[in-house]
């Protein structure tokens, strides 16, 4: 296949970015989307152009590093997968593909398609944990956890912290990310002790980082590669209200 690729190029956070258009030659339908970018980059280097910078690592949909908006959709057209799991069989010969970075005030562009997502780390830092020191844990089966609670916790804990929810939201809200972590820990008895403080501290950190508010567009759930449900946002709102009114 031959493809026309429109890519956002931006030298650094200070300079203005622009779209550049390239032709990607010899693209096989079995390639992953990132392999297509690898091939394009090899072509660019051969022509003496600096390759396109993009974040990637595991290339199997779990590290959360890849962060491309493909034809206007975070992680591209397929539901429930990351950009690295998207394959070129999804496109046709001659297609034009537009690739942009995550766009949100809280995720400033570093270079080309690479953004700074350290805001997520700072939100976790604010309370996304159970404060248990190494060595002080009781025997693992001391506290049974009902299977439905464990399953619900796992549904929320599946979040890979990629930030697609923020990129998809018209308000650049991080509510799904925060809600998923709060739900994961509050579903389990181990997370109960610090629950109220956690909800308040994480929401405060989220606001402080400059993420927007949730106005129920549900674009986050549609874009989430792990299909994390917006029901967790409803629960976050309820938990937050309860924690502030009955501290």
């Amino acid at each position, binding site marked *: 296949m031959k493809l026309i690729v429109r890519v956002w190029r931006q030298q650094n956070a200070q300079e203005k970015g622009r779209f550049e258009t390239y032709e990607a030659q010899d693209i096989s339908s079995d390639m992953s989307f990132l392999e297509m970018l690898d091939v394009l980059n090899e072509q660019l280097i051969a022509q003496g152009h600096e390759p396109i910078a993009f974040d990637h690592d595991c290339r199997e949909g779990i590290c959360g590093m890849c962060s491309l908006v493909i034809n206007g959709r975070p992680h591209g057209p397929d539901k429930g997968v990351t950009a690295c799991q998207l394959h070129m069989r999804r496109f046709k010969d001659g297609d034009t593909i537009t690739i942009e970075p995550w766009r949100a005030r809280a995720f400033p562009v570093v270079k080309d398609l690479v953004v700074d997502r350290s805001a997520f780390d700072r939100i976790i830092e604010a309370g996304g944990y159970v404060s248990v*020191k190494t060595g002080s844990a009781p025997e693992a089966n001391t506290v049974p956890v009902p299977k439905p609670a464990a399953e619900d916790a796992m549904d929320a804990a599946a979040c890979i912290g990629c930030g697609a929810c923020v990129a998809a939201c018209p308000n650049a809200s991080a509510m799904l990310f925060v809600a998923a972590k709060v739900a994961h820990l509050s579903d389990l008895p181990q997370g109960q002790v610090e629950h109220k403080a956690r909800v308040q501290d994480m929401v405060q950190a989220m606001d402080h980082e400059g993420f927007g508010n949730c106005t129920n567009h549900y674009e986050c759930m549609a874009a989430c590669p792990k299909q994390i449900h917006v029901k967790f946002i409803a629960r976050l709102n309820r938990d937050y209200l309860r924690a502030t009114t009955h501290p």
Partner: protein
Amino acid sequence: MTLDPKVPAGPLAEKWDQHRLALKLVNPANKRKYRVIVVGTGLAGASAAASLAELGYPVEVFCFQDSPRRAHSIAAQGGINAAKNYPNDGDSIDRLFYDTIKGGDFRSREASVYRLAQVSNAIIDQCVAQGVPFAREYSGYLANRSFGGAQVSRTFYARGQTGQQLLLGAYQALMRQVALKQVTLHTRSEMLDLIVVDGEAKGIIVRNLLTGQMTAHTADAVVLATGGYSPVFYLSTNAKGCNVTATYRAYKQGAFFANPCYTQIHPTCIPVSGHYQSKLTLMSESLRNDGRIWVPKQAGDARAPQDIPEVERDYYLERKYPSYGNLAPRDIASRSAKAICDAGQGVGPGGQGVYLDFRDALQRLGRPVIEERYGNLFQMYAQITGEDPYRSSMRIYPAAHYAMGGLWVDYNLMSTLPGLFVIGEANFADHGANRLGASALMQGLADGYFILPYTIGDYLVRTKPGAVQTDHPKARAGVDTARAQVNRLLAVNGSRTPESFHRELGKIMWDHCGMARSAESLKAALAQIPPLREAFWRDVKVLGSGAQLNQSLEQAGRVADFLEFAELLVQDALHREESCGGHFRVEHQTSEGEAQRDDERFAYVAAWQHQGAGKPSVLHQEPLQFEAVHLAQRSYK
């Protein structure tokens, strides 16, 4: 020099307890005076950094990713072993110890493996307390499943994302310490060298990947938790960023590198689809609990798998290893797949594949159960191949996956350089010549949570805190050397990309030093690597500058180290004239094609010492003494 593993005296089961009592302690008020650097934030690094910070040590943490949560431990799928014996099926610390040492083909240190089995249970306790959502029974108690090389169910799991959940637990513990200002976090920072002063490790040289700034960071001890080196084969199941640079630079500074030829080729990966392939994707070994591996009996049978009747299928693992069947250890399953494909019975493009079949399991258990157990793996397979694994067999083939070799460490996890500790996959550790499934997560967390925090104090208490600062001549010289290397890479301005050199090296390694090795193939590799390395330094092309984010430059630096390290790996493989675990020398096999060890000559850890550029490394041996275990040929029949 003599290689002293510092294994404590006394009965095997009491060594660790007695040793902990003998280790010197740093009093709580003094802990804050000792700084510790931790490089890498996977299971080992994150758990160690969090635990050391909880003890009161100021810790500086470095990772090349944009967040510590993205370290490649995140991709581990199947599970983590522990000797809890919850299923009441006969497990015990002794059995986990024995399975692990046998699985490693009797090439690991007995006392270290025993300790690993001993602390395994505490890891599960710790992770549950952190909120790791392990799979549970309807009763609410923890569930287990089976993995290769074991006849008990001792593996704990969180769907197909166990590594992710364990890492998030360790990451969250780490971020709690960041909030408490006990840990300083440096992301997008790559270690390029080790600072050694008077023979002791006292810091590292780091390149900030966003600004290109090169800085020295000093401390009273350095902990490397930088993972393995499987991408020396180019195609592997590792993340694209995984590299040997940190451990290899430490080796060049004097730390011994142990058993580099022990590499694990994982049997269940999605086969290569084309020349552009950038990585291979693992399908968890847990699939072998319910999936059956087979090939058509007739070579070249072109029918679709579902059209091939039962009698015309060769379930070769079940045939060859009836007592372990599809759960034979990884090295054996991989070699069997290669043998059957070499015999012409392979399936798929190029005949480089075997079937992994869930037809019987789907009939027996029904689709909902299979979805619950393996749903995300099936989805991953469908996404990559465009085929539906619920309707027809999956195709799999072995791929480079894990490095059992690594920097040599003693019982205290300290390398031959005092002050340099090495944990997790980065050390040569506990897996001998082959690692069993669900043991990497166990080892990484054992080192980080429950071993290093005890042993590091015994070193620190003997040193003067803050002895070396960043204005030390060695620190400045390190910065200059690292900067010179970057400038040298940018200055070549040749015609080939770093990627193309990496691919070429990978092909040499896979063809000549992969699943089957011979003196002839290894000598061929040794003849091909140096010219490739010279070509690299003559003709590599790195565009852009060193003063900003430049992924091509990062890759070039890592490939440069792989081009040197590969030679060490091959040299080790050539010297070890026996077959053991993942190291299979075709000259040394039984009449049935199984690995033939030579305990008379090779029951030792091979630790290599760097002698300077262009000089051959010197081999040191740590003899392996077995008190509790009787050395036997591994049998899984």
